């Protein structure tokens, strides 16, 4: 019990912050209201600090992932928070400026920050999930707030549309993985991931395969979770939702649910283990063939569909949405590759590669989205309320180098990073995926990955050349101006600097990811402790989630 609580201090810190933010946001005093963001920031920093210093629960298959994931969530969360400035309350505060009365009950400022923090908390919980129930709740906690965030992010119909699509399709995905979880439980009799893993793998060691029920459960739950990472065939919502939501929220969507999804996928796939070979369990270092084919197909389709569809887009956010799909495909390669041989390093451990890639992708996507988030379109003639709109069309970035050179630079660096151009961070992210997949013998997959990177180059180059190389004014009649929230641009600059600096001297980050990717096979000793700890694990974990569950809403 104590152990479990110790694991949860970061989430607790965030929860406390959430409560604080919700209260503060209701204040009639604008100065106090404005404290929401700093408080959130402090909360995230504290959570990150706590996560970095907590001990590691060694009883799980991915013992070090929780810590890494939480710190990662806090770190990128901080950048996302900077991006969030003014997203929800812009209209409101403008209205107050114009003399309208502040109505706490109609304000969405506090809730917005609270949702943000809740979702982040869900992500952190995901990273540390040790039980299917836990994982289910964490995933839901990650997702539910984002539905609201999308719908409320702007007042346009598009946000509504995005919200409704996201919510309904998300619910379908959730139902799917829930059903899968149920089947897994049915196949193993337990929801504790370690037990599930042990049982499944023991069975596999006996019969050579993991059994149809467990397989069905795993497949269904994986397919459900594919929604979170926007993988084919669960990707259809992505572009629409990303485009409809406010840019800052899109950035959030591109990172947080995806991250949670990958944590979940790794945990679930880890239950089946990477010890299958041509002669069944124990004869190699691959996934069970069925799962491998499933993930292989999904990975290939995902990266291809993402990259290919991005080619024709003219909306920056849609381009980035499809690119986000493609990147999920890339990361699935790491999942397929698996942890590699014992004591493998980042170069041969696909899970570590995925974890590192999440970091690099998070930073780079924040960078790219920050450019659109830091700009807005203002109708020249009027200063009316509705005249401000988001920058979306790629032509609106034309000539950016002349007007906002720093944003142009951010776009160039981050887009090239996403492209995987050395020596930027994106390249270092992709390289371990390459090597680990090669190590797992997935040469075809590597070649497809490579070719996809090349396809991707086509649209990333557009993202580079339009703002940086093309001169002239945007073709729209409206002026494209920077938003009055410098922190958005700052987030982008920070991300861009990180992309460069970490590319040159990111060894430490890589080492952390390498450690976080350590995968342990469930051992005999675990089974011994299982019976002892079973009551506690089943009792202790759900209450935690249960406490948070209702409060999250």
């Amino acid at each position, binding site marked *: 019990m104590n152990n479990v609580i110790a694991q949860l201090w970061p989430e607790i810190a965030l929860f406390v912050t959430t409560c604080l933010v919700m209260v503060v946001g209701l204040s009639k005093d604008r100065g106090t209201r404005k404290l929401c963001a700093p408080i959130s920031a402090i909360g995230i920093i504290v959570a990150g600090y706590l996560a970095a210093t907590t001990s590691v629960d060694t009883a799980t298959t991915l013992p070090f992932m929780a810590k890494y994931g939480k710190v990662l969530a806090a770190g990128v969360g901080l950048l996302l928070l900077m991006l969030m400035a003014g997203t929800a309350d812009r209209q409101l505060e403008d209205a107050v400026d114009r003399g309208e009365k502040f109505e706490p009950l109609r304000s969405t400022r506090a809730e917005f920050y609270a949702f943000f923090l809740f979702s982040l908390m869900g992500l952190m919980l995901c990273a540390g999930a040790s039980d299917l129930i836990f994982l289910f709740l964490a995933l839901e906690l990650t997702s539910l707030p984002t539905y609201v965030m999308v719908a409320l992010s702007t007042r346009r119909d598009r946000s509504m549309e995005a919200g409704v699509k996201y919510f309904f399709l998300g619910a379908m995905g959730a139902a799917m993985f829930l059903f899968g979880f149920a089947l897994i439980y049915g196949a193993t009799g337990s929801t504790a991931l370690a037990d599930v893993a042990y049982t499944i793998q023991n069975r596999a*060691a*006996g019969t*050579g395969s993991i059994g149809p029920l467990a397989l069905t459960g795993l*497949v269904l739950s994986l397919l459900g979770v594919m929604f979170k990472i926007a993988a084919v*065939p669960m990707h*259809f919502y992505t572009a*629409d939702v990303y485009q409809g939501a406010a840019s800052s929220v899109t950035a959030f969507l591109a990172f947080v649910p995806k991250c949670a999804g990958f944590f979940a996928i790794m945990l679930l796939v880890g239950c089946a283990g990477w010890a299958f070979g041509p002669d069944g369990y124990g004869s190699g270092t691959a996934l069970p063939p069925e799962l491998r084919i499933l993930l292989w197909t999904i990975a290939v389709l995902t990266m291809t569909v993402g*990259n290919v569809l991005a080619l*024709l887009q003219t909306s920056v956010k849609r381009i980035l949405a499809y690119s986000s799909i493609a990147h999920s495909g890339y990361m699935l390669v790491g999942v397929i590759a698996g942890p590699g041989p014992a004591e493998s390093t980042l170069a041969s451990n696909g899970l570590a590669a995925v974890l590192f890639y999440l970091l690099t992708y998070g930073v780079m996507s924040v960078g790219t989205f920050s450019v659109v988030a830091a700009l807005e379109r203002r109708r020249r003639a009027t200063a009316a309320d509705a005249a401000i709109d988001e920058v979306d069309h790629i032509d609106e970035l034309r000539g950016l180098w002349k007007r906002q050179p720093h944003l142009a630079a951010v776009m160039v660096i981050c887009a090239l990073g996403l492209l995987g151009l050395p020596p930027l961070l994106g390249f270092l992210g992709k390289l371990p995926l390459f090597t680990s997949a090669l190590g797992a013998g997935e040469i075809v997959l590597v070649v497809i990955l490579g070719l996809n990177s090349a396809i991707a180059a*086509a649209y990333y180059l557009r993202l580079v050349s339009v703002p940086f190389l093309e001169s002239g004014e945007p073709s729209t009649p409206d002026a494209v101006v920077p938003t009055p929230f410098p922190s958005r641009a700052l987030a982008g600059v920070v991300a861009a600097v990180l992309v460069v600096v970490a590319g040159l001297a990111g060894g430490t980050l890589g080492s952390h990811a390498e450690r976080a990717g350590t995968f342990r096979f469930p051992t005999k000793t675990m089974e011994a402790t299982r019976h002892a700890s079973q009551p506690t694990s089943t009792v202790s974990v759900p209450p935690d989630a249960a406490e948070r569950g209702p409060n999250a809403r």
Partner: protein
Amino acid sequence: MSGLAGQLAIMHETLGSLALAAGDAAHAQPRFGTGVGAKFDVPRLFGLIPFIPLLACALCGLCAAMKVKTKLPAAITVGCLLASFGLTIGLYAQVHANPGDFAIIHAFEWINFQWGQSEAQSLTANFSFYADSLTALWMLFVTGLATLIALYASEYMSHDVGQGYCRFFMAFSLFVFSMACLVMGDNLALLFLGWEGVGLCSYLLIGYFYKKPSAVAAAKKAFVVNRIGDLGLSLGVMLAFVQFGSLEYAEIFRKAEPFLALARDGQWQDIPWTVQLIPILLTIGAFGKSAQLPLYVWLPDAMEGPTPVSALIHAATMVTAGVYLVARMFPLFLVSEHALTIVAWGGALTALLAATIGMAQFDIKRIMAYSTVSQLGYMFCGLGVMGVMGGPAHVFTHAFFKAMLFLACGAVMHGFAGQLDLRKLSGLGKMPGWRIVTVAMFVGCINLAGVPFITAGFYSKDTILGDAFANPAMVPIGWILLITAGLTAYYTFRVFFRVFVGPAYYEPGDELHAHDDHSHDHAHANKDHGHDSHGHGHSAWQPHPPGWAINTVLILLTILSFAAIVTVFKADGWLYRMVTNSSAGAGIAADHHHKFFGFDAHAAMKVVSGIVAIAGIAVAFVLHYSGRTSAATSKADSLVPMLGPIPRWAQNKWYVDEFYHFLFVRPLWLLSVVFAAIDKVLVDGLVNVFGWVPKALAKTARPLQNGVLHDYALRMAGGVALLLLIIVLMVNRGDRTSAAASIPPTDNSIGTLPAAPAAVDPIAVSLDPIRAKAQEAVR
């Protein structure tokens, strides 16, 4: 021209030494081997021979850069060439003192590369010079003639003083440098350097009047056709390297020794075909440079260049490079069963063909060009029939009189504003100031025609004919050459009788500076190339006779042409020894004594060829001199219709150019067009397909993103169902296969999973006791 006196002095010296050499009765024994003796040392000073002209080239370049508007470049060139000539005489003296031996003068490293210890693993080709008598022979007339012709050109080119003048002398000196490298180089790579270098200079000088499209085309043609030859040469060089492990003559000759022994015994089958192939490849190069069939087509066109260039490069020196190559590499030619036959036949056919074309031309310079081609054919025959001496000897004598003929033509052209049509010039000898030119022309013509006993040309040509008839295998060639000799005498004197004697008449050419070669249609040419000269009416225009420089050079050459007799009139004279004391001497081994109708071939030829030459001249006299009243017509015109279309064909050069154009140039051009199309459509198209496929995919997939919520849901569910189906199918198949081979993994050490109770299902075990309860509970 302060250099003139010194030059004359040196000329005297040379002549003296030649005469001396000629009188020297003691000659080297015929040696059976590669003809290469021992190595001796000469001062490195002689290594400067090629580089002095290079210095001249650089200085002329400097003049061009400084926009010198005087005749300074000519002075520099003449001075430097004179110095070079002086050194050459010194070198000759050294070589003369060591008959049969050779010297290596190392200048500096060029390619010197060793990447392993074996022979094949090093490549050495330095700027080193190989000095033996063949080198000396060639260098003597190259530098000597170059000096004289530079002097001639200083006047001839005077209308172009300034940039063009500098350019001319730059290329001129560069040519001498290249030629010197070609002749003196001690390895095939340096020879190749010179080989291509003279090609470049030839290109630059043919295209000297670069505004004329015909000159540009001719220059290009010369370079490209030469390159085809160079291709053969370079392959030959490479094959020689691979065969002998070296590019250096001395080494190659040493290695060829055993093959030579085999060849002498006629054991051709024991000589590897690679060895036998080398000379054939070299022949391609030689034929290219020396304008032999099938690569002769560039030389007539090369007459677009200024006349001094034609004289030096395209008559006297450069075109003999091929002959030099064959002579120099003679040991290799001897070890090849067919190479010399190819050389001989190539030469003979070229000689005949060019002579027939030459007979039908009206442009006197062009006639000279074809005669050059024809005479080069003789030279190759001289080598090809294994006579050895005839070839170099003819090169030597031909150099003087042919240069002179060209220079005389040049003087005419210079004086008559580019007029070269023998139908528009007549009786020049009667005009004031043209006497020297006429005499020079006459001397040149009798040399070329081979008037017996008094001309050097007679002796050298005679040697070749004799050698041909002496070699039983080459008798047909002898007949061809004999016929050609008659034709040569005819067309040579056709020019002389039409232009220099008979009624005086002239029409000025259409150009003051450049000449025009369109002998066939002047009216048309006038329209095409009408420039400023339109304003010059005939009445206002006066021919200007040559000045002192031209005349001096012509006089000197006249003397030299005659003087050359001393080198050849004895069968074992000076030239003989110059040749036999070098690597070309290897050919002496093949000493044939076939009879010409029972007579000694050489002796018989002295009579027969003399008769043939006289006969040819007589025919020319009858047709073109006796009773000719106008410039444009002659008795020959009445004979032309009797020959049917042949004269027209010959006048049109047997349509060889057109034939080449349709056989090679056009198809190659079409091929290029096709390649360009393939590149655009197929190669690049394929690349573009790779770019197009993703976009096409995107266009196909895009409608799926139609924005409708439940369509999305349907697609997601469908996708999930599809994936599940795949899995299910897999599981079913997997079950079957695993059932077929249901051997539980016994060796658990493979996996990282610790040994699990393989046979026991943990769930089954743990749940079994409770299951009864469960059933109860459910009930």
